[in-house]
């Protein structure tokens, strides 16, 4: 059951990858990468249950966090042209 859900989510991530490749402006690409990141969080959580190692949830939490920081950094750089 979790196995099939993981496969569906991978297919959805490939669908979003189209937008990341085509995306007319840079914001579109970052949006698509952000969406792929949220899918990766679920994939990590699901694979923790597929392989019966619930410790994977720590990694899912960390990944969600890094994804957020990347988006905030992009926003800052886009507006100010610098990171600090």
């Amino acid at each position, binding site marked *: 059951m979790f196995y099939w859900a993981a496969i569906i989510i991978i297919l959805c991530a490939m669908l979003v990858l189209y937008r990341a490749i085509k995306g007319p402006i840079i914001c579109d690409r970052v949006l698509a990468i952000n969406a792929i990141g949220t899918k990766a969080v679920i994939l990590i959580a699901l694979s923790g249950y597929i392989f019966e190692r619930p410790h994977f949830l720590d990694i899912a939490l960390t990944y969600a966090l890094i994804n957020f920081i990347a*988006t905030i950094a992009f*926003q800052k750089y886009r507006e100010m042209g610098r990171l600090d």
Partner: protein
Amino acid sequence: MDHSSIAIIIVGILLFLGCFLIFVASVGIVRFPDFYSRLHPAGKTDSMGQAMILVSLMIYEGFTLATIKLIIIVLFIFIVNPTATHALANAAHAGGVVPWRKGEKKR
């Protein structure tokens, strides 16, 4: 029908709904005409689908420490995902991206 098989059915339904919502979000990101309208599926449907799948994992797990960790992840997602969406919208607005009007060509 015993208790555990009912739980498994609920897990399956929630898992299906979550996958469906994520699929809708992906279709929306590909199909909508401009950047601002693509933010809507990325901000709302994606976080809801994520939450659905994580809730189904919670029910599968029963009440253990992993459940609490899953609840923390869901709360984190609902705080962080709208903020990321807002940050992207703000970046596009600062960069002078204009919204698509009905009747224009898709971008």
